[in-house]
């Protein structure tokens, strides 16, 4: 194995200090999120606290904390019933279908748990505009109208202009264009919004800054505050909606889920027009590293987190990850999740038969069903598959 200098902490840069060209915004949201996370002691909540949270009409951050606590575990069934009612009240039977499109897996970061990390020996690939167009055409032919464009973090291989070109191409085929790319400055988000993107999702991975430092050893992603403030910059850049996620299992999942919810809650208070969404990933095995496995976040804990998000912010969209098995996903839609991916390929160039230069995937998926199969599963649950639930204006 080659020598990796960042494994020695003395060779790492300060993860809390912004790098040149990283925009610093005037905001105290991160401080509030971290204060809430640090003050949270999941074991301090009692059954009575959870009962109060369940009975509340409008739920406060304290209620949310109770719902995420171990004391809520025995009341998972009750949470599920309430969450189902809230989901139906806000979203009816509608479940939106979408698919992610990975356009480049070049990455300059060194995140020890990620299959794209710069030291992981995978096959790298990047779609050129013709390749992107080909992939999008193939996806659109399945009937999907909502696409999420993803890249690894490499400003040299996948520049903002390159991502913008992908957005413009996407607007030819899709009603909704979302981005899950590296954090950008406000002006860059504004540029991508003009190119056709309306949604930005940034996975914070973990809000535990000490743990974050140990996991993100190099690259721009190492800079913790720049990543936390990405959603706020995206909203300032004119994006309609922003998505939040912690990769559950990297640190204390209850505290990370609390921070994720508080981050979304605080930003919605500050930007009331913002559409809020949660993703709920947990660690999955990656290529070349058998030690990375989901440990303490089993399905029961994952479901508790998802239900707590729903009960805390009933109007928020919730996306259920392809990392989970079909049986889990099919039950969570309608109960809490409002968006489900279909026909997923997490590699590069896997949607169209003509793609020759295929790159490896970021992680292993558990639900490889096609769009017609997922659509049929949604209908089988008595729900309504929706291809478009937004409008770009």
């Amino acid at each position, binding site marked *: 194995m080659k020598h990796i200098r960042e494994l020695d902490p003395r060779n790492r840069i300060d993860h809390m200090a912004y790098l040149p060209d990283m925009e610093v915004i005037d905001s105290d949201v991160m401080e509030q999120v971290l204060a809430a996370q640090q003050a949270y002691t999941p074991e301090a909540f009692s059954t009575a606290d959870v009962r109060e949270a369940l009975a509340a009409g409008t739920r406060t951050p304290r209620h949310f904390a109770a719902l995420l606590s171990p004391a809520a575990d025995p009341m998972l069934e009750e949470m599920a019933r309430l969450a189902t009612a809230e989901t*139906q*009240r*806000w*979203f*009816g*039977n*509608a479940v939106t279908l979408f698919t992610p499109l990975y356009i480049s897996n070049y990455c300059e970061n060194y995140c020890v748990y990620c299959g794209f990390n710069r030291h992981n020996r995978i096959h790298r690939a990047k779609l050129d505009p013709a390749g992107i167009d080909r992939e999008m055409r193939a996806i659109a032919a399945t*009937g999907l*109208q909502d696409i999420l464009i993803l890249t690894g973090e490499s400003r040299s291989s996948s520049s903002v202009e390159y991502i913008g070109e992908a957005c413009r191409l996407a607007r030819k085929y899709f*009603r909704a264009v979302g981005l899950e790319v590296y954090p950008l400055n406000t002006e860059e988000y504004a540029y991508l919004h003009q190119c056709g993107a309306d949604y930005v999702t940034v996975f914070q991975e973990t809000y535990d800054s000490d743990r974050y430092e140990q996991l993100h050893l190099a690259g721009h992603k190492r800079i913790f505050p720049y990543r936390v403030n990405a959603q706020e910059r995206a909203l300032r850049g004119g994006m309609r909606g922003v998505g939040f996620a912690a990769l559950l299992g990297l640190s204390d999942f209850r505290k990370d889920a609390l921070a994720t919810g508080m981050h979304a809650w605080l930003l*919605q208070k500050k930007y*009331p*027009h*913002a*559409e*809020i969404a949660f993703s709920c990933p947990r660690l999955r095995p990656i290529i070349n590293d058998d030690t990375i496995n989901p440990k303490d976040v089993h399905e029961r804990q994952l479901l508790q987190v998802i239900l707590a998000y729903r009960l805390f*912010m009933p*109007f928020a969209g919730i996306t259920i990850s392809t990392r989970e098995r079909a049986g889990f996903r099919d039950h969570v839609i309608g109960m809490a999740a409002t968006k489900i991916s279909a026909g997923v390929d997490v590699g590069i160039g896997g949607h169209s038969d003509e793609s020759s230069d295929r790159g490896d995937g970021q992680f292993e998926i558990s639900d490889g069903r096609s769009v017609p199969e997922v*659509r049929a599963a949604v209908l089988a649950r008595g729900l*309504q*598959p*929706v*291809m*478009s*639930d*937004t*409008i770009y*204006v």
Partner: protein
Amino acid sequence: MEAVMECNDTLTLGGKTFSSRFILGSGKYSLDLIRAAVDRAGAQIVTLAVRRANPGGADDILDYIPKEVTLLPNTSGARNADEAVRIARLAREMGCGDFVKLEIMRDTRYLLPDNAETIRATERLSHEGFVVLPYMYPDLYVARDLVEAGAAAIMPLGAPIGSNRGLSTRDFIQILVNEIKLPIIVDAGIGRPSQACEAMEMGVAAVMANTGIATAGDVPLMAEAFGLAIRAGRAAYLARLGRVLSCGGEASDPLTGFVRS
């Protein structure tokens, strides 16, 4: 009930006449719901979220709407007047006609309408020949401004969208009924047939409902219940509410009849 129908009690909006005063909202769609609303509740107007339309594509809600009903496209997703105008134009290009239900919201938590932006958009869209039905928070001054701006009806909210809380704004809607000459259509919050009936008794011209039916255990039966309740409430309004119902005790003979002139 039949007497209501016999006296040609109709609702006119934008030059179109409707015998039904039930409008199906668009928040929560399903094929069953639309069929039930049309067949069992007699809905002749169905709202359509333009953001959900997928013309020519899969699972397009336009495919589910019977051709004989009047489409009322809404501008949900608009955060200001400019966006609402663009969405209305898009609806017209899609062949949805000139009716538009104006919805402008800048808060994703409560989904309350922005009255000021709604007035601006109403003015612009009515100049472009749209039949504008603005969703608004019930405020008399705003309603008057909307009339001036060219609205075809006023659509005050009964309670927050999807809340099923009924007529939380009852007293303010009554003021609009009393003072505004345009049809007043209660939008949002109506969760039970009894609430729809109460609104109609107050003299509103029509009721829009969606969640109360969409989330019912038996959608067709609940649609029928709403249809009946709206007709009952309208009949009660036309019959003029009786003494007990309207203002408490009232002697059947005049109390001042003994006075000699």
